[in-house]
Structures are given as C-alpha cells and as structure tokens.
C-alpha cells in the first residue's frame, strides 16, 4: 500500500507557498505511480473541500492547495486550518484502480504538421512510421496541466522516443502541435513560442475558456493519440 506520508515523523511533507498556498509533496521524481497517488489524493481532498479552498493544483509528485486570502481579523488562520485539514486525511492513499475513460486525440503526424518527426526518428534509430506507431500505441496519463492554459504534460512516452528539447525554442508553434520534450509528450493548446520537438498536430481544441469545461483534459485523465491520414 502506498504511503502518503513523506515527512520524517510520518506526516505529509507540507511546505508553505507564501501566505495562502501549501505544497504537499508525495515524492521528488517523475514516476507514474507517484503521480497516480497525487491524483488520488487530490480527489480525496476535493471530496471534503472546505469553501475557503480556492484551488487544488496537482503536479508530478506534489499538489498545491490555495486558500482565500484572509480578511481581517482572521487573515492567515486559513493556512493553519488547511494544514489541519490535510493532516486529517487518511495517511494511506491508494491510486484509483477504476480506469476512467480514455480521451482520443486524432493527430496528423509528420510533414508540415510535424516538422521534427524525421529528427526524432533519426535520434531513435527508427523509421518515422515506427515513431508514429509507438507514439500512438500508449495510453498516456495527464500528469498535470501547466506552462499555458490547458497544456497537458503526458506521462507514458515510449522511452525510445525521448529526446531533448530544441536548443533554441521556436518563436511560434501552431495550436494543436504535439511535441516531445525529454521523456514526456504534450500538446500546445494555442500557438506561441515552444521548444518541444513537434511530431504532429491535432485539430482538437484543447482549451476554450467559453466552454463550461474549458480544458478538454483534466489532471489524471487518460489520453490516446489516433493517427489520421491526409493533408
């Protein structure tokens, strides 16, 4: 059974992020098992979330809890209350065994959609078609959303496809670009600067603030890429 506790006294390792944030650390590595515990713990917290909690923000091996900034005369008491709330959680958190649905994302690989596909293939010693099939063969997990609204950091990349980011980031990566950055893969929701190796592009809209669910993906979701043909 996985232990939530990371502190030396068996209690969770909690760090204050200034006056209205707490960082709860479950590990220090990018590891799918630790990340699964982060999402399970985030769900557990959400189930008993007090109304003064503003946000629960998962990351690879940690999560942050942000509280409303205090209003006098009770300013700052909320962080102490948040620490009590977190410490009152059961110490052992199991990753959910129930697999939620998989979000399928159609991708056009290579060519103008994936200008770095050939470089990734050469680096891996593979044919570009093998890069595509290996990239599309895995169910990924959304480790966290960051960098930009709706940008998913996906865990599960075939290790043979890992490749360092570009030395000099591109000034403009088109919206929907699917990239490889180190041992991870991800999708740029919006055009902008970026340093990941771009191997394809999707027309799926990752983030639209006007939707009731603005982000297509939530932390902890499962994702699969589906190659599509055509220009």
């Amino acid at each position, binding site marked *: 059974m996985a232990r939530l506790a990371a502190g030396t006294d068996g209690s969770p390792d909690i760090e204050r992020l200034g006056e209205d944030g707490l960082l709860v650390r479950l590990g220090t590595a990018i590891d799918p098992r630790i990340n699964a515990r982060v999402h399970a713990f985030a769900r557990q917290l959400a189930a008993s979330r007090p109304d003064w909690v503003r946000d629960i923000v998962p*990351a690879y091996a940690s999560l942050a809890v942000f509280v409303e900034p205090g209003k006098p005369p009770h300013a700052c008491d909320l962080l102490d209350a948040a620490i009590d709330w977190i410490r009152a959680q059961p110490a052992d958190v199991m990753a959910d065994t129930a697999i939620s649905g998989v979000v399928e994302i159609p991708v056009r690989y290579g060519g103008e959609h994936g200008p770095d596909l050939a470089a990734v293939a050469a680096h891996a010693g593979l044919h570009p078609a093998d890069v595509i099939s290996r990239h599309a063969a895995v169910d990924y997990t959304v480790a966290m959303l960051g960098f930009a609204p709706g940008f998913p950091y996906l865990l599960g990349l075939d290790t043979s496809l890992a490749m360092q980011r570009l030395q000099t980031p591109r000034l403009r990566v088109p919206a929907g670009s699917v990239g490889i950055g180190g041992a991870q893969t991800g999708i740029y929701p919006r055009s902008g600067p970026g340093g990941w190796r771009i191997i394809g592009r999707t027309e799926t809209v990752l983030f639209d603030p006007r939707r009731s669910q603005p982000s297509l993906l939530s932390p902890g979701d499962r994702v699969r890429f589906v190659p599509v043909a055509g220009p």
Partner: protein
Amino acid sequence: MTIRVLAPGALSTVQNGGREGYRHLGVGSTGALDAYSHTVANLLVGNRRDAAALEITLAGPRLRFERAARIALCGADIDAHCDGRAIPAWRPVSIPAGATLALGACRRGARVYLAIAGGIAVPTVLGSSSTDLRGGFGGVEGRALVAGDALHVATDGEIPVEALQVARWWIDPSPDIAFDTPTIVRVLPGRDTVAPAGALFDPEWRVAVASDRQGVRLEGEMLRPVDPDERISEPVSPGTLQLPPDGQPIVLLADAQTHGGYPRIGHVIRADWPRLGQLRPGDRLRFEPCDRAQALDAWRDRCHRLARIELAISARLQSA
C-alpha cells in the same frame, strides 16, 4: 458610452482583481499587478473595488471619450493631459464629452490604473474580466489594446459635465506606494536557501529590462542555492522568488506560469506586491526577511488603510 483608443501606449490591458480557481488547468492569476492603486482608482469613481480598469505600463495611451465621464488615475507618476490641460492623480476628475485624454510617460513607477465610473465593460471569462495574455482570453480579446479599439463603459446615464472638473481633495498613497530608493519588499522563507545566508538580503538588486507581467527579473551578484540539484516542476504562486541556474532571482507576478522547477528561495509578502508592480527596469530593490506574524500584521494594516480610504472617499463623494 464608448472610449476610442487613438494610440495604445506600451502595454495597456484591462485588469480587475484577478482570476482565481483555475490554476489546476494551467490558468494563472492575472489581475492588476498593483492591486492597491487599482482599488483606490475604482473607489475614487464610485466603482466596486475590483471593477475592470485599464492597467497602463510605462507609456500611456491616448483615448477619446465620446461622452462625459468621471475618471481617476492612480499608481505611477504619469504625465496626464485632458485636451491639453494637466490633470493630477489620486483624485476624481470629470471630463467632458469629446475630450481626449493623453497619458505620457511614467516618471516614477511603472503602472498606472485608469478607472472610469461604471467600469470597463468586457465579457467575464472564467469568473474575471482580467486579460490573460498567455492564454489569449479575457479583457479585450485576450490582448493589449491597439489603436482603433473601442472600450465600452457601463454607465447609468449622462454625467452632466460642461468642462474639466478636478476634485480639490486627493488620497495620499503612502506608505503603500512610495517610490523609495531602493524599494524594499519583505520575504517569507521558501523551501530553498542560498549560501552564504545573507547573499539574498545584503545586496541591492537591479530590475532587468526583461521584467514583465510574469515576473520581476533581477540582476546582481550570482546567488547559489545550498542544494543545486535539478528538481521536477511543482506548483508556484505569485510572489514566489525563484532562482534559475544563472543565479539571478525572479519574483513571480500575477501572469506567471502555475508550475516551476527552479529552487524557491522565498515568497514576497502579499502586502508588498503593489511595490513589485511599480518596479521599472533599472530600479533598485532590496529584500528584507520577515516571519508569518509580520506578514499577517502587514496585511491587516493594508486592509485597514484601504477600509479607511474607502470610508473617506465615500463621505466625500456623498457630500459632493
């Protein structure tokens, strides 16, 4: 009522109190960097504290008011003229229909807030009217103003203004906005420390040109974290003091990313964020260590000062 943007200024964006509750989707806080000046400007024109106002950076826009309006300018010292007549800051000003408001360069400080009675009417996106430049939404189409834009103001009717009227009273923003040299901000401890221990607090830091709404980038003696090991990305907060490998610290501001992988060597307290928002390239900055009790006192004092200002303004506006 419509305000026509004749010239946009260096970086003018619509901001309110910020957008909270979406950091788990990678959406940053945004909102006025100097929330103190933003709040006072709104109070001076009878708006709610967190109404949408214009945040003006270093060099201001030129705006034509189609109808009469009551406005207030708070924050940095800026050259402001209405149809050629200089107008002062930190007080209500009524300007007649057809007037052109020309905002020049900031003399001291970096950001001015222009509040307009009724507030700037933009769609609420994810609970806020603030511009998210990284996400490209909120405010005016998710971007800074450009020439030709029209800003709409929610007014209840005509304000009878024949000629420029400047209130004879004003708000003194000190000590919250003081433009001291060097600017001093107080810092709570972070997870990481630097060696030697005084290396963060002893020297003066210089604000780098690359500073923006995401962060104040600093230049000075290279800092070294006690533990330089690489680490994975973890959530960060506005106010977080990050130390990248080049040893030059960055104070994260409202538009910063939600996650970061650099050592966190401190957190600037909330009461001092407005001072961070007023730093301009070349300004000098010093950090002072503080503890939670001092941070709490500073925040309570700030809240009390704003409450007194709100009462004073409301008494003045009612007697006017």
